[in-house]
């Protein structure tokens, strides 16, 4: 998005008409194979999904072959009165909101640090910091599953053990320094070991958010860095001359300049969070006890594991409705359709 507007050069109508090409509609035949392939694997399944959501199909096998009959909106009625559905919608939006806020803060923080004039070798470090983006999601997410291992010697538990050790050590030092009374490490500073990360509702949620932020930060950083580099240095200098402090310059010069790109990146990354499937599925399948089922996990489980095809279709249609809003927002806010109508 950031790099597009300046290279986009829509052909004008006159220019196109001037081309000494023959038959006009040959273009349609060139587009058609791709369009058919795309429709067969994307649009047709969506239409079929909507049909499924209006039937009483239970298994993949009953979908075609006359075993399923139309039941109208019954699945949707059932869905909107299902406690699990509202839990899933709630946790999905909470996941989206919490990770979005952290992503924006972390993204701006990293981008500002790695463009800071005092940082030496920042170009090389910027190339390194986006490395996580270069790995397949299934790779990074399974690594994070290992990081959050509940084993006593899992990496994060091991770090907590080091932290506990450090707290106890400091307490020991204080104890020997303050000779007139016995000091021991205060209980509230110590972590109960080992932490079963993926067995508690909110520790699982924390693990999801951490991983989601880690997956998304390179994208945010790329967008924000290129936005920061577009901020004219004269603006900062002028503000400095006027005696503006660092915070004032950040709020009144930097933020307004990067607001647009950050907004656009936020829409895209929020949409990705909404559709997050791999993190919950690989970590603990939306557990424990289905408390953290993001919407796609909820639908997938109802279909593939619980064999409630029609009901699951209703969930997925609801999810697609939300995704559709995101798609529309992204195109509208990103100004992406500008190049379309070169009529």
């Amino acid at each position, binding site marked *: 998005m950031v790099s597009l507007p300046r290279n986009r050069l829509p052909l004008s109508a006159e220019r196109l008409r001037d081309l000494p090409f023959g038959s006009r509609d040959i273009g349609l035949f060139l587009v058609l194979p791709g369009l058919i392939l795309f429709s067969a*694997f994307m649009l047709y399944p969506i239409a079929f999904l909507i049909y499924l959501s209006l039937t009483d199909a239970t298994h993949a096998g009953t979908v075609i072959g006359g075993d399923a009959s139309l039941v109208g909106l019954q699945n949707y009625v059932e869905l909107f009165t299902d406690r699990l559905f509202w839990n899933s919608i709630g946790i999905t939006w909470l996941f989206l909101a919490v990770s979005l806020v952290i992503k924006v803060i972390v993204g701006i923080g990293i981008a500002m640090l790695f463009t800071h004039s005092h*940082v030496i070798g920042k170009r090389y470090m910027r190339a390194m*910091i986006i490395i996580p983006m270069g790995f397949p999601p299934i*790779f990074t997410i399974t690594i994070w599953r290992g990081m959050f291992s509940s084993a006593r010697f899992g990496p994060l538990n091991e770090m907590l053990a080091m932290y506990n050790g450090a707290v106890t050590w400091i307490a020991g030092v204080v104890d020997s320094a303050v000779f007139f009374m016995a000091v021991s490490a205060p209980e509230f500073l110590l972590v109960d070991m080992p932490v079963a990360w993926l067995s508690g509702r909110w520790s699982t949620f924390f693990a999801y958010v951490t991983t989601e932020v880690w997956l998304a930060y390179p994208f945010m950083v790329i967008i924000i860095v290129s936005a920061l580099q577009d901020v004219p240095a004269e603006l900062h200098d002028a503000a400095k001359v006027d005696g503006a402090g660092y915070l004032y310059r950040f709020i009144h010069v930097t933020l307004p300049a990067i607001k647009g790109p950050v907004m656009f990146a936020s829409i895209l990354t929020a949409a990705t969070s909404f559709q997050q499937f791999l993190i919950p599925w690989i970590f603990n399948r939306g557990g424990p006890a289905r408390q953290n089922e993001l919407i796609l996990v909820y639908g997938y489980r109802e279909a593939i594991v619980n064999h409630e095809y029609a009901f699951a279709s209703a969930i997925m249609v609801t999810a697609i409705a939300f995704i559709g809003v995101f798609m529309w927002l992204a195109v509208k806010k990103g100004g992406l*359709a500008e190049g379309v109508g070169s009529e």
Partner: protein
Amino acid sequence: MKLIDDIRAVRSGHKRPQELAKSLIATGSAVGLLVVLLFPVYWMLTASLSQGVGLMSSDGIFADPSTYNLDAYRYVLIEDSTFREALLNSLVVVFVTVSVSLSVIIPGAYALSRRRFAGRTKILYGYVLFTQVGAGLSIATLIALYALFVNFGLDNSLLVLGLFYAGTAIPFNTWLLKTFMDNIPVSYEEAAMVDGASQWQVIREVILPLSKPGIAVVLVFTFLAGWNEFIIAQTLLQSENYTLSVELYSLATSGRYSTPWTEFAAFAILFATPVALIYFFAQSYVESGLSFGGMEG
């Protein structure tokens, strides 16, 4: 070295010591942050080199570097046949995805960029809707797709899976290549026409050679689409047809308490390395594509 220059400047009185201190603090915290953020990758790398050493044990998070060995890689590549079989399956899928999508995307992008025909604007609007946001759409439609495939007997086919990835890759990549072709000046074609070139010659001699970088990016993205995807492959395929990503997941979840971390790590790194290399060598291209395409690809 900028740092050494800075120190000299401070010594000779050209620069205030505070400036140097600022540089040191800022650089230090940047390096620290980098280490924290890349820790998981580093952990995986060391794990893959620590076969037979007490990993995830009381010895600490990392094994002793002097005990590093390549045993895990030898196991994954030579002793065990899983990786090789899955690699073959992945290559079949990726080959289908890349060849099919390129053969429909290039003509499509050309037509959308250079021709006018009925429904052109509508098709473009449709495609652009699917360019940015929609990674989850294929999961949402997966259950309908699965039902259809099972009924037509098309599940458990690497060919159909490859076709499916090609189908989902079309809007984004067609749009990408179309915008790339829009930037090729029309005057080149006009000049060729004046010299008496036929339509086909213009496409072959002007458009295609000039589109090479764009086609390369599309190739990378379609390759990644086939190589990286996991959940649809896992749902549709039976174990004998598992691709690398599915085998990786099975390895990570094979035992509830005893994931074979070293072998998993070696497998994972062998799986991710081609992708990482592509990103590394095509970084500027991919970045310009990414800043347009969001998180997809």
